[in-house]
């Protein structure tokens, strides 16, 4: 999440230090990475590149990755090319508020500008905004589960969903509210729906709803930094009943019964926004792009190819999008409420995460690489949430030490200081025993506690040179039982590490590969937060 927007117990100074790296970490250019395509590694950081006439460098929500067909058509019609750089809403708002979009981006295209409006210094960077399409938050449930619950999709309310979850009859996955607009909108919808608030959420509403929300989020079995990986993890797990996401994402799957809760939803309206920092020619291109997107032909293409709803009255929603109206749940009117909710989600409501960091400190890490690792880890400590369990497992020819710290809500600093102290003590020596160390990480995590999000982060700068080999690890993994096989490994490409080797580990364990070779290690660690 963005340190700048809602430092929790974090100091302002830390927040600022992080803000400077915030967006680029999550930014990835379309050519390199498609958030909707979980098969490809996440590149950090992305760079929007130099201005090219006729090409609009658009800072965009990752949910827009399904728009490539539409953009290609618009380019044929207008000659305007869209070059997206994907990011989370909160990071985008930070970037704008700090004036860092100037010269880098020609337009902004988020799922929604609601959060942006809560930050006047960011809102001022917007000259005009035009909603292009819309999609409400919904829950996609396995048809079998819908039958077992005896639900009539049109009549289901947030309370019904809550009842099913707390009764142990419904589990679900959703994206991380700090990383993905779909998760953020879901969180607002759930909190509004379950608090019984009749108008925009207030701090008091959130506080009142906290016990209920805690119960509700016990049902969350999957978290993800992107909708694409969430879907992949959902398929792999097979035992999760539902996904909370935008209607468009859920409809695209075709195997879920998509329910828009009867008592209200938050709708993303995808405003294409021009920026004050751009010149008249650029803004004119943005205007032309907007106009092209709102023609009936393109609106039809949008609704048919992305299952979002059109915003011009003359085009009907794609077949399968039910036209019944839903109440629009108001988005909080103040930053304190929105940030307070995100904060509560991270530190109180969601399951805590439990992570083993398997860190290569072999001889080749000596010098600059080790320094970068130490810096990245130290900075990461401001990201750890209350109740989180962090295990550092540095390795060379073998695992060198295993140190576990818990960020306790009553004294978070003690845990964080411990992590920082252990980080300082890291030293580089020995060979690279990737697989042996990974096996130890799994053994260390032991029986999986279903009340945590459990994962392994593997950072290595080279190939495996000691201990168990890849086949040994395959065999080890195959012998894992029960929920241990649900623990994903998130490998980070760094230095001279072997891409094929790490990709295989990610695929085998249901993780995802992160690429820090061209970007920063901090960026990769940061990006992985959305998956922990």
């Amino acid at each position, binding site marked *: 999440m963005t340190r700048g927007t809602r430092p929790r117990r974090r100091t302002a100074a830390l927040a600022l230090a992080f803000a400077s790296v915030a967006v680029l970490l999550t930014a990835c250019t379309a050519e390199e990475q498609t958030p909707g395509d979980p098969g490809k590694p996440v590149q950090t950081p992305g760079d929007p590149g130099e201005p090219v006439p006729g090409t609009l460098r658009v800072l965009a929500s990752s949910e827009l990755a399904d728009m490539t067909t539409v953009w290609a058509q618009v380019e044929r019609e207008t000659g305007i090319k869209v070059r997206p750089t994907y990011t989370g809403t909160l990071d985008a708002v930070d970037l704008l508020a700090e004036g860092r979009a100037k010269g880098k981006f020609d337009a902004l295209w988020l799922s929604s*500008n*609601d*959060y942006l*409006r*809560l930050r*006047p210094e960011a*809102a*001022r*960077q*917007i*000259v*005009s*905004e*035009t*909603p292009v*399409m*819309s999609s*409400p938050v919904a829950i996609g449930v396995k048809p079998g589960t819908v039958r077992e619950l005896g639900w009539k999709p049109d009549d289901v309310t947030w309370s019904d969903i809550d009842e099913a979850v707390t009764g142990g009859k419904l589990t679900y996955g959703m994206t991380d509210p700090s990383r993905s607009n779909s998760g953020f909108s879901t969180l607002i919808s759930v909190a509004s729906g379950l608090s019984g608030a*009749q*108008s*925009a*959420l207030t701090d008091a509403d959130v506080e009142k709803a906290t016990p209920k929300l805690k119960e509700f989020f016990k049902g969350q079995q999957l978290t993800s930094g992107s909708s694409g990986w969430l879907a992949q993890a959902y398929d792999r797990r097979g035992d999760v009943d539902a996904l909370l996401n935008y209607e468009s994402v859920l409809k695209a799957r075709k195997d879920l019964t998509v329910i828009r809760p*009867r*008592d*209200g939803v938050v*709708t993303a*309206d995808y*405003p294409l926004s021009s920026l*004050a*920092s751009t010149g*008249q020619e650029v*803004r004119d291109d943005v*205007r032309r792009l907007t106009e092209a997107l709102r023609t009936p032909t393109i609106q039809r293409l949008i609704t048919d190819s992305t299952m979002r*709803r*059109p*915003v*011009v*009255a*003359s085009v009907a929603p794609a077949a399968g999008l039910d*036209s*019944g*109206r*839903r*109440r*629009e*749940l*108001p*988005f*909080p*009117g103040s930053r304190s409420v929105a940030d307070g909710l995100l904060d509560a989600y991270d530190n109180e409501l969601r399951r805590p995460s439990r992570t083993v960091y398997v860190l290569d400190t072999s001889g080749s890490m000596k010098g600059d690489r080790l320094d970068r690792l130490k810096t990245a880890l130290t900075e990461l400590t401001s990201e750890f949430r209350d109740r989180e369990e962090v295990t550092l497992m540095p390795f060379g020819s073998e695992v060198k030490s295993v140190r576990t710290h818990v960020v306790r809500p009553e004294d978070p600093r003690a845990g964080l200081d411990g992590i920082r102290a252990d980080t300082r003590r890291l030293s580089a020596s020995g060979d690279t025993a990737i697989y042996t160390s990974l096996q130890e990480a799994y053994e260390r995590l032991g029986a999986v506690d279903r009340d945590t999000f459990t994962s392994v982060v593997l950072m290595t700068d080279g190939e495996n040179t000691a201990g168990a080999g890849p086949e040994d690890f395959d065999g080890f993994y195959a012998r894992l039982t029960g929920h241990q096989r649900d623990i994903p490994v998130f490998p980070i490409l760094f230095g001279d590490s072997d891409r094929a080797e790490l990709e295989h580990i990610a695929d085998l364990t249901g993780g995802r590969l992160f690429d820090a070779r061209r970007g920063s290690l901090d960026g990769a660690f940061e990006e992985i937060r959305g998956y922990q």
Partner: protein
Amino acid sequence: MPSASTLPGVRRIAGIVLAVLLLGGVVVAVVAGREEQDTGTATKTVRMVIGSEKAEFFADPDVVKALAAKGYTVKAETSGSWAMEGLDLKGYDVAFPSSQAPAAELAKKYGVKQTLTRPFYSPLVVVAHRNAAEVLAANGLATLDEHRGTLKMDAYLDAARDDRTWQQLRGAEKYGELTGTLYIASTDPETSNSGALYLAAASYVAAGGRVVASDADVARTAPLMRKLIGVQGAQQSSTDAAFRDFVSGAGNPLVLVYESQVAALLGDGQSPGDLVVLYPDTTVNSDHTVVPLTENGRALGELLGSDPRLRELAVRHGFRPQGAGTEFASAGADRGTYLNQRLSGVRQAPVPTSAVLHELARRARG
């Protein structure tokens, strides 16, 4: 009339707000007149700063042509109406905000003594889907006549004061979307003209048909204004976005927009769906007021109000030209069932001074 001393700090706050808006680069060149336009006459270039809702009007090739025929090339840049006060308008011929209050401030600032012309105007209206409009009518909050109706502001403000929800209204239970607090969604009154004018109308009704002027008036009406705005949560920054969301079926059941937006939609031949236009029985007109800064500017302002072709084009864009003309009423028969052509039964609330309005907005946003 309040002064800076009766409302301490208001001016300063407004000043800061404007300064910040300007730092953000609110002023944007959007419409460049066609300088190369071959008109056969020597053209006078008129530089204007206009409210954004008129950008499409001045960008319309037919408008460019009609102006050129009269010897004018217009270069228009958009700015929030309230932000114009903080601009350096040296070198401009006209400021053209979307309501009278900022125009009056500008006239004072630039020493413009003559009467300000208002070539066209547009009342604030509330758009609703049929279900919502019918429930309001069934509960005495509105009267309906086919695709249009009248919203009873007194009754509506009473409902707001009592935190009335849709569930408490008879007949709402038939429609799942009609739940939660009953409110009209507006734009942010601190930055947007229509949001501020909403408070002007509501505070006038709340004060028993008087313009809010003194500190005591502000103190009395502020809690209700706070309610009207507070329940909405995050607000749209422009009526344009709010209206587009409404058309797409998302958003609140009741949305405050300019009548010109609805008229322009109907004029485009677009299907309005089950749209109902509710005219508040007390509303405020958005008076597009010309503040002439030069002789050329003055002449252009007059032309906008008097030239039949330009008046006709203003109507095409949904505006009502000033005067007794029949252009608006006769434009498009289909518009008639949606629009209250003669504004019968609609009272105009006078707008408080800028200082008072800014203070109301500030307190309402809380």
